[in-house]
């Protein structure tokens, strides 16, 4: 090889290397810049357009061709009126549902539940904060107790049916989307664009994962905060995260399991179906069924494992499917594990609220809310659960010396109705009335001088919240430790990731603390073990001595 060709070659190689490097340099930062949905915190974020190649629609109606929708809409209710010209019964259907009323009467415990009534240990309560919270209400204009729940155009059709991903309800607007561009969250310089309502209206179709997720992935004030098994990673999940929703696989929507008819969405965590083990194939076509279609058993039956793994079917009378098949929660991103309101209100020397980021990039402190912890790949806690949940409501007397159970999951190994369930237990510390011994509804959001997030004064905030909610308040408050349980039921893993036998069948396995069952490998009768091994040891010592004497006596002979 001549020196000239060598030089030419090395120039070529160097050039190619440079080209590759440049290519990387220009493409690499892109994902960092890419907007992270829900990173804004307490928002009901934009629904992204369906990704991937567009499938041919199987619908018989193309809403973009409907003249009712080919006009300029000034507000959400105007769009709803247009929807109702054809879908005459839709609003009436919606108005009967929990999605609309935020009320649920538990037929079992007779407790009146629902977002409207319960006090949780996340953002605590809706009352007096409607303008903010109702960003996740499927309606328009619920800003205080005067909201008209019967007005049909108050129903928000778009949030559940639009598919552009541009329609976004902002906290503070009482359930409306912004009708002109606005900065949100305030003072961040981020602009939320007002959606083109005509385009949004023309895009409607069946409810997608992103539609449900617009609220349900962001419960508790941000992405992945509340459930641990529902967050924005389910918009386009891979097989690892969710075997049923796998974008390249079964590609289920939420409604595939939560089989909705007449806008009634089955499956409720206020009255969950804990044990659904009676029938082999309950939801066979043509069969009249009234049972919950959203359970695993509704499709898989009570003995879902094939014959060669028949022993696994022996477990279905004691274990919820979820216990083995959802080995961890928060498998897509971290979920919030605790929230301590008692530390809220620290301000900068200039009197401004601030946030502190934890090592994982999530907020560890927020002046408005207090301290948080986050965890991912969390091993659930396991409890006997029969579907009955007992809430600590605003009038329930609590014992401040103990951790208050916001919602107590009932169950026992002997009631014949319970299975062992995985749960997320969320730990909180929140205000309570030290005289009346009740939880408190704080007034957090608003431009008035009592809203905590504006003025950081608990006395004013709590008095106002309780006044609006109509609950007696002594004026004395403290902070009490609370716990809230969440059944883990979404993000079912592929079977290869299900728990293996020894993860429970061992001395320090997952079900270590679960009483009322005998588990080989975990349990044994201690007395029997002492006697058994003891006598076997004595027998061994006995024969060794006997044999020893035989050897000695033989030697003497020799």
């Amino acid at each position, binding site marked *: 090889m001549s020196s000239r060709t060598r030089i030419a070659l090395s120039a070529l190689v160097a050039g190619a290397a440079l080209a590759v490097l440049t290519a990387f340099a220009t493409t690499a930062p892109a994902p960092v810049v890419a907007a992270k949905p829900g990173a804004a915190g307490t928002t009901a974020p934009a629904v992204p357009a369906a990704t991937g190649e567009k499938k041919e629609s199987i619908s018989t109606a193309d809403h973009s061709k409907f003249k009712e929708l080919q006009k300029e809409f000034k507000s959400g209710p105007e769009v709803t009126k247009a929807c109702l010209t054809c879908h005459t019964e839709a609003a009436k259907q919606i108005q009967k549902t929990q999605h609309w009323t935020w009320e649920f009467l538990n037929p079992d415990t007779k407790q009146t539940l629902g977002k409207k009534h319960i006090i949780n240990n996340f953002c605590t309560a809706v009352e007096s904060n409607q303008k903010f919270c109702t960003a996740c209400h499927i309606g328009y204009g619920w800003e205080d107790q005067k909201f008209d729940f019967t007005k049909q155009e108050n129903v928000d059709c778009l949030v559940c049916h639009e598919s552009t991903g541009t329609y976004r309800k902002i906290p503070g607007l009482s359930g409306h989307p912004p009708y002109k561009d606005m900065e949100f969250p305030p003072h961040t310089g981020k602009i939320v664009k007002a959606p083109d309502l005509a385009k949004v209206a023309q895009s409607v179709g069946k409810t997608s994962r992103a539609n449900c997720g617009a609220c349900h992935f962001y419960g508790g004030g941000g992405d992945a905060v509340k459930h641990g098994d529902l967050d924005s990673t389910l918009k386009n999940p891979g097989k690892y995260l969710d075997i049923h929703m796998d974008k390249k696989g079964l590609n289920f929507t939420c409604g595939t399991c939560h089989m909705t008819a007449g806008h009634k969405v089955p499956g409720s965590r206020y009255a969950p179906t804990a044990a659904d083990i009676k029938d082999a194939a309950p939801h066979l076509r043509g069969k009249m069924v009234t049972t919950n279609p959203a359970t695993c058993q509704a499709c898989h039956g009570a003995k879902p494992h094939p014959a060669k793994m*028949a*022993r696994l*079917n*022996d477990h279905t*009378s004691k274990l919820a499917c979820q216990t083995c098949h959802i080995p961890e929660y928060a498998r897509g991103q971290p979920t919030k594990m605790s929230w301590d309101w008692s530390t809220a209100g620290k301000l900068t020397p200039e009197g401004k609220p601030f946030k502190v980021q934890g090592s994982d990039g999530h907020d560890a402190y927020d002046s408005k809310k207090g301290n948080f912890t986050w965890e991912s790949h969390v091993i659930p806690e396991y409890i006997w659960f029969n579907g009955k949940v007992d809430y600590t409501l605003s009038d329930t007397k609590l014992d401040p010396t103990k951790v208050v159970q916001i919602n107590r999951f009932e169950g026992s190994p002997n009631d014949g109705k319970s299975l062992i369930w995985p749960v997320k237990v969320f730990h909180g510390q929140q205000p309570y009335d030290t005289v009346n011994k009740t939880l408190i509804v704080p007034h957090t959001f608003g431009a008035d001088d009592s809203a905590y997030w504006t003025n950081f004064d608990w006395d004013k905030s709590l008095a106002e919240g309780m006044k609006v909610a109509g609950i007696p308040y002594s004026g004395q408050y403290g902070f009490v430790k609370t716990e809230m349980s969440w059944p883990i039921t979404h993000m079912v893993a592929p079977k290869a990731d299900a728990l*293996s*036998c*020894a993860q429970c*069948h*061992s*001395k320090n396995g997952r079900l270590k603390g679960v009483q009322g*069952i*005998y588990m*080989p*490998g*975990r*349990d*044994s*009768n201690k007395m*029997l*073990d002492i*006697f*058994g*091994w003891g*006598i*076997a040891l004595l*027998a*061994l010592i006995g*024969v060794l001595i*006997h*044999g020893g*004497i*035989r050897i000695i*006596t033989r030697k003497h*002979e020799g």
Partner: protein
Amino acid sequence: MTTERIHVFKRFERFWHWSQAALIIFMMVSGFEVHGAYKLLGFKSAVELHTIAAWSLITLWVFAVFWHFTTGEWKQYIPTMEKVDAMFKYYLTGIFTHVPHPFRQTTLTKHNPLQRLAYLFFMLVISPVIWFSGWFYLFYADWSAWGVDKYLSLEWVAFFHTTGAFMILIFFIAHIYLATAGHTPLAHIKAMITGWEEV
């Protein structure tokens, strides 16, 4: 004392003995792992292999029972108290002072009186305990279909199964040791392999 060779263990009997020995040893190893005593095969494999070994042993026993009845060999296990005291005395003292064995094997009485009692105990007490409890353990899922779920708990089924297992372990220790108590330490063992015993 003259010695003579007799053929005490037929071919099937030897096959039965050694395959049963292998299965029982394996079932002890896997069974005590399922019980949580140690980790060796892994819980899942231990359960699966223990089950396979159980079915193999059941099959083997079906053949063994058939063989014993068709050959009349079952009579070898009819208990007798005759010379039992002599046997005890021999194991306690005589074996050390090399007095002659109080029992003389023949093809019709190949087990000494203590053996007869021990094997009968094995068959009438240990086996039923281990097999019945094991059967219910194995078919745990069918208890409600059989209508026995009201009377059984896995805790007690496991208790009896483990009790049976400990009895087998203790039997096994004594059995192995006494196998060395022939006229030479390996005499009985050789006989169990070749079928021929010097008497």
